[in-house]
């Protein structure tokens, strides 16, 4: 996946300013930056929610900028949302059955295939097991605590068998235990060869898990490198860590 000098403006506001970077196969890359740095906008550009004003995005050698979200998802990019968005009125199991219909949604076989086939259910249960959610399979998704909803979203994205997984602040609002569980889960996914792009505010979480970090500030990329490099970069400290410390470093 390659992001090539991508710019996005909304009217006069430049949300993302000529940002380029690459995610290598099987890599776990974190995208960090203070609030309003343009991280989520960049996510939305990658997933086709917005179209870049300038610049191009490539995935697997093909240009994806300008394609519809559903097409991009089909090409192998799974995502989660900053504010969790499971299908709240479906059960946990049903949530994972939705993406398992991937090959039917583009043609008339949606009329002939049932989500209740044993093969789909066992596949879904397997995904739920990996997410430590198999005990909750028949609960309504909106009734789950936030940590579980987060993992459900990831399991749902994994059901698409993506090559790249985009995680938008997966650790936000989680307690220590949930956060540990999530870290384990993400590392397991990554070790299965799925590349991961992670947006995260929780610095401790990022430093622990990311192999490489890209830092955004005011829409521009200000640093890129391994965690230790980035953490000692004065520009980053000023833009991100420095300001956080003054406020009392609520993420520490």
């Amino acid at each position, binding site marked *: 996946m390659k992001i090539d000098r991508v710019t996005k403006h909304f009217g006069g506001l430049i949300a993302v300013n000529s940002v380029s970077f690459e995610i290598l196969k099987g890599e776990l890359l974190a995208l960090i930056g203070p609030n309003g740095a343009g991280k989520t906008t960049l996510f939305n550009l990658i997933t086709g929610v917005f179209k870049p004003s300038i610049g191009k995005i490539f995935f697997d050698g093909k240009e994806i900028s300008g394609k519809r979200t*559903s097409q991009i*998802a089909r090409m192998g990019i799974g995502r989660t949302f900053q504010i969790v968005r499971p299908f709240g*009125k479906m059960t946990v199991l049903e949530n994972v059955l939705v993406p398992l219909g991937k090959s039917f949604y583009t043609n008339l076989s*949606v009329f*002939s295939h049932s989500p*209740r086939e044993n093969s789909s259910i066992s596949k879904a249960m397997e995904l739920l097991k990996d997410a430590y959610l198999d005990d909750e399979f028949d609960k309504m998704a909106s009734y789950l605590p936030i940590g579980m909803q987060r993992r459900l979203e990831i399991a749902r994205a994994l059901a698409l068998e993506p090559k790249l997984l985009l995680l938008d602040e997966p650790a936000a609002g989680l307690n220590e235990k949930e956060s540990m569980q999530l870290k384990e889960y993400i590392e397991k996914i990554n070790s299965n060869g799925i590349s991961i792009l992670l947006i995260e505010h929780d610095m401790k979480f990022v430093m622990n898990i990311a192999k490489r970090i890209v830092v955004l500030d005011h829409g521009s990329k200000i640093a890129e490198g391994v965690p230790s490099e980035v953490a000692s970069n004065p520009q980053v400290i000023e833009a991100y860590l420095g300001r956080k410390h003054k406020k009392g470093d609520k993420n520490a």
Partner: protein
Amino acid sequence: MGYLMTLGIFASIYTILAISLNILTGYAGQVSLGHAALFGIGAYVSAALTVNLGFNYWTALPLSILITALVGALLGLPSLRVHSDFLVLVTIGINFVVVALFKYTPFFGGPYGLLGIPRPSLFGESMNTFEYFLYAVGWATFTILFVYWMSKKYIRVAFEAIKEDEEAAEAMTISVARFKIYAFTISAAFAGLAGNLWAHYMGVIFPGNFSFSKSIEIMTMIVLGGIGTIRGAVLGAVLLIFLPEYLRFVSDYRMLIYGLIIVFTMIFIPSGLLGDRSITWKWTRIFKKGDRVAKNNEN
């Protein structure tokens, strides 16, 4: 007896209408208050084909369904741009426009409507009321079975997903545009069928038969019965066709009663009489709970 038969025909036609609106609103979440427009298009197309152009009923039937489905697909286009409450306003507007088109187009008979619409004939003889009753019930049964079958397939999953969260549905590879158009098309096809059955039973149709208040009536049926379920749509249609005939005072204040039903159902029993998680099931919850515990233990 003939009168009861007529009510049975109406109940069948409204069952088809309610189920068709349920596909659009209950399954796919696209609230339409202009469903009578599609009902009217089915009726008018079939009437015009047979009366004005001399088509045979059995040719007019598939044509009226097909044309209504195509118009439905077109009318679905605004839903790609506007959502929820705005879409409701658009569908109301469409209802008024369609009725006005019937009213001001001489080909459609203008305000006097179309007369002399033939009954379908079977073996050279046109159907009597009893035969037509069986015919209508047959179509209603077909509709129920078809939609039931459809509701077990992935198409229903896609509808459910776009109803709950369009952005998440897209992330799950479901093209929201495609499935909205599917919902409008399938829903319109059945509304067209209902229109055809109505026109060829009544023998005469007026623009006023398909006005906005008719759309409210159809919506009341699915809200009362339980939105999102076939059984609810059937119950709502049957109740609202038969009740006014037996409770005369209801029939005098039809629109008032419909309004009140919507208001009170929404406030006190939002999932209707037979919807999922409705009061009817709550009363039988004890048995169900026992069931569920047993099931969980098995797993």
